[in-house]
């Protein structure tokens, strides 16, 4: 029983940490410097 409770506690802590990282993490946003310019037909 004690082991099960510990495992459940570890699982809940791990999911809480994963959740915080997933939703509060910086991640990859849009390009902050520069951008894309269309290349036109040079003919």
């Amino acid at each position, binding site marked *: 029983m004690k082991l099960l409770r510990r495992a459940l506690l570890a699982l809940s802590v791990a999911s809480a940490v994963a959740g915080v990282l997933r939703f509060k993490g910086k991640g*990859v946003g*849009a*390009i902050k*410097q*520069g*951008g*894309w*310019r*269309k*290349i*036109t*037909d*040079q*003919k």
Partner: protein
Amino acid sequence: MIGIFGAGVVGSRVAESLSGDPQIQISVYDSSQVVAQRLARRLHETNGLIQATSRTELFGAKVVVLAGSSPHAPVAKELLERDVSVVSTSDDIADCLNLLALSELANKKKATLVIGAASSPGMSGLLVRNISKSFDSIDEVHIALHGTGGPACARQHHRALSGQSIGWHDGEWLRRPAGSGRELCWFPEPLGAYDCYRGELPDPLLIKRAFPELSRVTARVSATRRDRVFARMPMLIPPRAEGGMGGLRVEVRGTKNGERVVDVVGVAERVGQVAGVVSGCVARSISVGEIAQSGAFVLGESALPNEIILGQVLARGVQAHSFVRA
């Protein structure tokens, strides 16, 4: 007459890009005759000269675009032996090597063989040649591809992540396990950033042939964790009829006015669309005599009219973008 071998995603895009010119006679062949007939019927209004044909009737064409699944080398050999020029869209390393070996046959038959006329390879070579004009000299090219065309392309993408990648590094070919070497690559909007990995792609081989002066060439392909985990297993889920929005990113490094410079160009478009338009434009160039040399070529090679071909590709709606720093 221009022949199209395969009426799948790429084949139908080739036909669409060529059908804009009502003077061009197009013959479409597919192992399923119904598919070829359906494509010919759909485009008949824009081009009255398009028709579904048999495999043997393709031998009467001036040039044939191989738009089916690889291997292309046996079909290319068969066509070259009958003096028919060939444009291959193959993106398989072994197949590209076998096609390169047909150079002598193409020369003997005074026919043209263009290898890797698709998105990557193909459009990548055209972009490198275009961007290299703004450099004094170039020494590094790094390619990244996102997305797939039709089901055959998706299967090739799956295989590419499980084999051995090749890259040219300071005078020697380096082999690394595909799926390694993660790099975050930015593609033009609306794609954004994707993790890309080394893959068993023919780009380094063909780019190095077109630009012998390069000291480093690499090619990467975007992949998810699931792609990498299941890459060494058979494809369990059948691929979709066509992949979504794809992208190509070409990074060129070299010197300009004595300074080290890095330029990036990219394309955000369906991979099948890019492949179809590029191979269609190359076939048209052979058909009208803009490419008259015999032998095997890859796009970007100085012997080809790369500027004209790129101009036609852009005129057919494929948009290329260059990255500008703030």
